[in-house]
């Protein structure tokens, strides 16, 4: 998590070797799984089945949740704005792309492009309106305000006859290049690129002067205001960017499941990124990704398994929620700053023991990644 200390591309590559390794690994993972299991990454016998296809699906879900959690982290971890209505933007993306594809006569290619543009505009507009309320509302009041707005849309679309109320509607006609059935591998790369771009973009943003003001708002909004920053403007920027990123994740989620329904606007897509961010480490760059990966992978892999200890068989599927609940409790008590936050702290403590104090520039950079424990109601 260090900012490149050497200048230029080479320095950046060396400093980020770990992330680079993961990105390259993920890019070739479908082929590697294909080689190991013998199932082609393009499917078996022309049908979208096989181990590689299955794992691509699981990872696509992880990538999209990671983007959603990262967008939440921009608000919650870096700007100190608590929102309980993040699902609104996620669902807005899904509904707009669904409506564009199924309710317009533009043809699938154009519909996708127009849908993405409209979804971004709509989510940015919603974010702007909600953000303006933060002019007056603070902390928990703002959080519950966003919750009320999101629930409003959830209930409204759950009853709207045009979009088939709570059943939702299916997306039937997709261009081949983004069709998760006919071109799973292509969809995998789109989701992967979205995640990587989001990660790099947020890191760039936080290290920019704008990001510095966001961090200042997180630490002490009154002080940032007193220095002369128009904090509302920076909060609006953060909320709008987070909303648009969440909408992108929602678009791909709707395309991936080929289904648009009110569940996209539901509380799950607010609570999940919240849990993923806090458990992974709020206010760290990798935290939301780690949280999304950890929670979603354990969910997908353990949910239907059975553990056999001696003579007793534990059916994990039946007690899955119980295990998840206990896991949350343990993580919160054992890792006080989330996984990445605690890891960073541990590493910083070790470095402080073995090396002389870092130069002032390095110290400033570390201040960015403090856990968001202060940014509470």
């Amino acid at each position, binding site marked *: 998590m260090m900012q490149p200390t050497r200048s230029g591309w080479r320095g950046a590559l060396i400093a980020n070797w770990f992330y680079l390794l993961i990105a390259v690994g993920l890019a070739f993972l479908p082929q590697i799984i294909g080689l190991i299991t013998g199932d082609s990454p393009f499917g078996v016998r022309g049908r979208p089945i096989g181990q590689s296809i299955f794992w691509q699906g699981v990872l696509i879900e992880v990538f999209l949740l990671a983007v959603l959690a990262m967008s939440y982290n921009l608000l919650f971890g870096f700007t100190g704005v*608590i929102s309980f209505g993040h699902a609104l933007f996620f669902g807005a993306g899904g509904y707009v792309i669904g409506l564009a594809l199924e309710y317009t006569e533009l043809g699938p290619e154009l519909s996708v492009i127009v849908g993405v543009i409209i979804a971004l505009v709509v989510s940015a507009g919603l974010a702007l309106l909600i953000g303006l*309320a933060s002019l*007056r*509302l*603070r902390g*928990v*009041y703002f959080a*519950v*305000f966003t*919750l*009320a*707005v999101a*629930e*409003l849309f959830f*209930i*409204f679309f759950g*009853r709207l006859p045009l979009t088939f109320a709570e059943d939702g509607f299916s997306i039937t006609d997709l261009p081949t290049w983004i069709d998760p059935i006919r071109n799973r591998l292509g969809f995998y790369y789109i989701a992967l690129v979205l995640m990587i771009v989001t990660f790099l973009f947020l890191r760039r943003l936080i290290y920019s002067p704008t990001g510095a003001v966001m961090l200042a708002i997180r630490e002490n909004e009154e002080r940032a205001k007193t220095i002369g920053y128009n904090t509302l403007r920076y909060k609006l920027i953060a909320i709008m960017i987070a909303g648009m990123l969440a909408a992108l994740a929602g678009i791909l989620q709707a395309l991936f499941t080929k289904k648009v329904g009110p569940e996209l606007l539901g*509380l799950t897509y607010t*609570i999940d990124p*919240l*849990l993923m961010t*806090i*458990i992974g480490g*709020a206010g760290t760059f990798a935290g939301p990704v780690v949280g999304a990966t950890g929670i979603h992978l354990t969910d997908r892999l353990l949910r239907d398994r059975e553990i056999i200890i001696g003579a007793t068989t534990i059916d994990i599927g039946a*007690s899955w*929620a*119980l295990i*998840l*609940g*206990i*896991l*949350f*409790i343990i*993580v*919160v*008590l054992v890792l*006080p700053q989330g996984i990445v936050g605690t890891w960073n702290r541990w590493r910083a403590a070790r470095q402080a023991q073995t090396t002389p104090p870092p130069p002032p520039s390095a110290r400033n950079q570390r201040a960015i990644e403090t*856990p*968001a*424990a202060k*940014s*509470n*109601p």
Partner: protein
Amino acid sequence: MQRNYLIVAVIAAGLLVFAFVTASSVGNFGITLMSGLFQGMLLFLVASGLSIIFGLMDVLNLAQGSYFMVGAYVSYSFHHSPEMMTVIPNPDLRFLMAVLVAVGIGALLGGILERGLLRPLYARPIFQIVLTFGVSLVLLEAVKFIWSTTPYSWTELFAFREGFFELFGQRFSTYRLFVIAMGFALIIAIALLLQRTRIGIIIRAGVEDSEMVEALGVNVRAVFTLMFTLGCAVAAFGGAIAAPFLGASTSMANTFLLPAVAVVVLGGLGSYIGTAISSVLLGLAVAVVANFVSSPAINQPVWQSLTPMILLILVLLVRPSGLFGKGS
């Protein structure tokens, strides 16, 4: 302080006028008000515990709905178990005992949660959300394990559950009156506890400035444990009182959590009276709107479900700290 009551009076008057104008008859008007008051009090039974824990202690306890649910289950099984029927044949006395047992179990579970898990987290409040969410999952699974997922409906009759009274030509269970009375009793009891007793003074002082109170020689930690226990006990009490009407089901926890959070925020964090007033206002608003939009001429029942959100949004835009909240 005067302005708060003015706004409440304006909202209430607006609702009453709207209800009167849209009512089909005087009888219909009366029934709507009755139903609104009942729904408001039912909501208050869930929200009162949250008002103590979330409003006064600043702990957003996502497990609050689970305590409500546990209260309902405990009182149901106590009242319906064959053993208890032989030990306490009198159904009224048995219901009283069932409520007491539910309150006791709620308090016990609440105390365990605060002492065992929540205490290290006062320094980093945001993690309380994750922790209490985890606890709510565990409690839900425990309830499913003990009582299975089948919902129970209250079948045993007792005094209030049995009777009916007639209002404007419509029959109501006297249990509705009992729930309303219990709601008022709870408001008065907790308000007296907070305003007129020594422990109430310590609680309010501890909320204002816990370090100062600690410096005066008060064991603030113990007071916080007590408050949390009280909040959970009150939630279980609400569940036990609501059970003869709502029955006991695993969906109770989540259905009532959101409205309860909304009501506490609507009333203003830290104001117990605010929670009580906003519960009744919200209940009235939902009943009035429901009566209007479900009439054959309009028939848009979705607005009934949207009413709580719209009221909350509008009030927060006018009063950013809720109706009775401090600050700004």
